[in-house]
């Protein structure tokens, strides 16, 4: 069965979703990711969706689930690289992914995670 690779980048894990997700692949990803967070003690998870041409409620729910599970394992999730057409469609669909942090690209997402780790303010990077 196909697996989505999970790369370690400093204190964060990077997942690049490039293929059309289906149910089994999404479930396998949740399992692999949680195991990897536990093994590496990662504090952040970056999910790059810049290759995805659509995000439907199935993928949206997967992103929400990953964020919720990672939070329980003390890791923050940032979804990065959403295409503008996907953002417009998601909001019209009624799915605004309120449980998920987003950043424009991997670099900014990484910065959000590092800011939190260094205690430079809250998770959004603002100084309190």
């Amino acid at each position: 069965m196909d697996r989505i690779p999970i790369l370690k980048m400093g204190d964060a894990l990077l997942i690049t979703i490039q293929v059309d997700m289906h149910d089994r692949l999404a479930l396998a990803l949740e399992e692999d990711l949680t195991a990897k967070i536990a093994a590496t003690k990662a504090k952040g998870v970056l999910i790059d969706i810049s290759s995805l041409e659509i995000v439907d409620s199935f993928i949206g729910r997967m992103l929400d689930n990953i964020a919720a599970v990672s939070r329980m394992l003390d890791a923050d999730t940032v979804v990065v690289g959403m295409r503008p057409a996907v953002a417009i469609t998601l909001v019209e669909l009624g799915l605004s992914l309120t449980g998920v942090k987003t950043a424009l690209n991997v670099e900014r997402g990484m910065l959000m995670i590092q800011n939190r780790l260094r205690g430079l303010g809250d998770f959004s990077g603002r100084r309190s």
Partner: protein
Amino acid sequence: MAVVRDDVMPVRSSDDIVRVRQEVRARAIEIGLSLVDQTKIVTAASELARNTLDYGGGGTTRLEVVQDGGRRGIRLTFEDKGPGIADVELALKDGYTSGKGLGLGLSGARRLSNEFFIESKPGEGTRVTIVRWK
């Protein structure tokens, strides 16, 4: 309304949903939909094909390129012979689900389309038709 092209695809597995998305995308590009409109119709198709599979127990998706006067559009019909929907009004409400989904499939697909029709009879099945015009 004239039908320019007509294809029927099976929806029996998760992989079939991926194929439906790819075909809808190809047609959307063919009739010259903008990138945002392509994304909307493909997303709506993905939601409805998943309903056909998850709630209808599988069925078919009909992809038609239609012409009405000078304008072209895509008409998609999702049909199953599953348990049907007892209360269609309720099923169209945001957040309503009989399963484990988010309950956005039907209502979301309606918002993403220019035209939306649903027919369902308990015990006989469900047919949802959407149209997106160029």
